[in-house]
């Protein structure tokens, strides 16, 4: 079997240098590569461009890398919930490119599928369309969008095996699979790393060919952003 297992998050980031473009999986704080973000903060790599649906919150997720000014540019669909982000953006320290969420997902998917460009309806007639080719299909206008190009993809899965195969849980899947497929170097951290042959080959979400390095995360906090519950019926 092809060897992909690395000892820890620090080793997994070998070769990640200043000025690189990274994809970082997750939706809000759900399914983010916590251990890789922590290691990247420790590593101190600067001037990064991050493609990630959101930008974390103050003190967690990508917010940790914003605090240390390691991120030069964010490419996201939604960046609320983050005071430090807002401060840096308004002061001009941080460059921000906002992209419709489906376009963001499809540009990742295109990169991992060797499709350099595709047409999508999102953003026609809005400022997102500025400078983009518009073409009609079936009487409806579409924009030409391009595949992303990322030096590294940092993703988080529930389970993974030594062959690099990944399985996600719940809505923690989100952007992780497409980013895993898109990275020039893809690093996956998993809650549980198992021997090859343990996972059902039918149930793999990301085939190991897309994953270059894999390790079991030392610790997962898995913070919840909006804890919404209903009371248990006391009568039951």
């Amino acid at each position, binding site marked *: 079997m092809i060897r992909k297992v690395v000892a820890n998050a620090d080793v997994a980031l070998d070769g990640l240098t200043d000025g690189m473009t990274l994809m970082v999986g997750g*939706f*809000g*704080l*759900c*399914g983010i590569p916590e251990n890789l973000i922590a290691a990247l903060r420790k590593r101190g790599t600067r001037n990064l461009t991050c493609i990630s*649906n959101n930008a974390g919150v103050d003190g967690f997720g990508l917010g940790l890398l914003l605090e240390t000014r390691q991120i030069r540019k964010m490419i*996201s*669909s*939604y*960046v*609320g919930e983050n005071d430090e982000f*807002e401060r840096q*953006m*308004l002061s001009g320290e941080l460059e921000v490119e*906002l992209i*419709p*969420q*489906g*376009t*963001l*997902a*499809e540009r*990742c*998917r295109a990169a991992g599928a060797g499709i350099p460009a595709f047409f*999508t*309806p*999102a*953003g*026609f*007639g*809005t*400022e*997102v369309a500025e400078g983009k080719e518009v073409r009609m299909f079936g009487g409806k206008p579409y924009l030409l969008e391009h595949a992303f190009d990322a030096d590294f993809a940092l993703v988080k899965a*529930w389970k993974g095996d030594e062959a690099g195969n990944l399985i*996600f*849980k*719940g*809505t*923690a*899947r*989100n*952007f*992780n*699979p*497409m980013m895993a497929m898109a990275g020039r170097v893809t690093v996956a951290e998993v809650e549980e790393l198992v021997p090859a042959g343990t996972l059902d080959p039918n149930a793999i*979400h990301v085939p190991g060919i897309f994953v270059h390095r894999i390790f079991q995360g030392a610790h997962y906090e*898995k*913070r*919840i*952003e*909006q*804890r*919404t*519950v*209903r*009371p*248990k019926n006391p009568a039951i």
Partner: protein
Amino acid sequence: MALDKNGIARRIAQELRDGWYVNLGIGIPTLVANFIPEGIDVEFQSENGILGMGPFPFEGDEDADLINAGKQTITALAGASLFDSATSFGMIRARKVQLTVLGAMEVSDRGDIANWKIPGRMVKGMGGAMDLVASAENIIVAMQHSNREGESKLLTECTLPLTGVGCVKKVVTDLAVLDIDPERGFILRERAPGVGVDEIVAKTAGRLVVEGAIPEMRL
């Protein structure tokens, strides 16, 4: 009397049809799930990657790995499925979702919508709204008829940066139900209980068509 948020949601819920897949935006749209009419089976999609979304979990059952697009903890019903964001927006663009309900800051009488950006204010991003409005065949906007300054949100032309062009088919506000005919403008269909047509006319800045007697909503 003008409807409260639950009233708007309750009226929109009447638009649900059996067998529909529905995407509900954040805010008033989310409340629609609480008023599904008897005998109607619908399934809720959340664009972060779930179909068959259920109610909030019981206290103690929250799972950090199971949230909706508003980042709230949720549950999954029997028959639910989970998928990645590309598949999720794939089904949205391919028009497999029969109804999208979302909020807006402004709607024009040709169906344009603005709901993501106010110049001069911190811009948080469009999230999935641009994909949803550009793709859905059936979009209902849930919003107040007027903004906090008392200005109409139903305009001839949106003044804010657009989210989508010519896409909104129906608007349900605290005062009225209006269809949009791009040729003619807002078509007044129903008024909130106790609200007069005059008030709706006064508070609608865009072209408004009032034909015949306008019935009160039945809630």
